[in-house]
């Protein structure tokens, strides 16, 4: 068997063509890594607008003015005059509590001077 192996080894083999070497040179030189690299680059280019959109979502709401605290109710106490005042200050005897008159006005910030 050893002789046969030597016999096989002595046979001259077909060689790859120069065209293959040229193709391989082109392959190594042109950087077949470009597809992978471009995929990575594309990822970054896609990440940039995505980050921008995310930032917009975060930042844009903060541009609105903060919500105003609820305005405290304004209470106006009116002192009636005349007969009404008398009936309020000197209520009838059968009345347990004097009639109260409270006028509540809800005020909002006004742009009027």
């Amino acid at each position, binding site marked *: 068997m050893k002789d046969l192996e030597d016999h096989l080894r002595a046979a*001259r083999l077909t060689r790859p063509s120069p065209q293959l070497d040229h193709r391989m040179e082109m392959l*190594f030189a042109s950087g077949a*890594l470009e597809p992978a690299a471009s995929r990575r680059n594309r990822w970054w280019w896609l990440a940039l607008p995505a980050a921008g959109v995310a930032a917009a979502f975060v930042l844009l709401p903060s541009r609105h003015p903060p919500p105003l605290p609820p305005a405290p109710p304004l209470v106006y106490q009116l002192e009636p005059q005349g007969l009404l005042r008398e009936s309020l200050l000197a209520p009838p005897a059968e009345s347990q509590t004097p009639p109260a008159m409270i006028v509540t006005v809800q005020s909002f910030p006004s742009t009027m001077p």
Partner: protein
Amino acid sequence: MSRAVTETLRVFYVENRQQLYTYAVSITRQREAAEDAIHQAFQQLLRRGELVAEVRPYVFRCVRNAALDGLRRAKVRGDSILAGEPAPEQVAPAAPAPLLARELDEKLDLLSADERETIVLKVYDEFTLQEIADLRDVPLPTVASWYRRGLEKLKYLLEDNP
């Protein structure tokens, strides 16, 4: 890392181009298909952008897969791994006669694909039987059997039935 992979593969190709080509032709039996398989395998390896520690069996396996893919796609013409006629620059006194090469190739063609592939890997590409078993993902005794049977057939064909 990418440049390192490219350089590693480039050096590997330069140092192993003949072995890779012989192996690919032994599978495809067609020179153009073998060259396409080698090109395709390296293209895929470069795109992958990373290599395993054992580069040699890995690259050979990739070339094998590419060659088998090519076989599935194309009709096999049956080119030789052995030179039929010497190229002018390859003529040397020690070179075997073209007839011998052609005869050897014809006999190799009579072997099964597994036997031929094993003999090519062992004799021409200097793989050990264990490395071939790893490459083919088959048990070592199977590879040893392919090799022994292939050599016996070749011996019978060459000596007893010239």
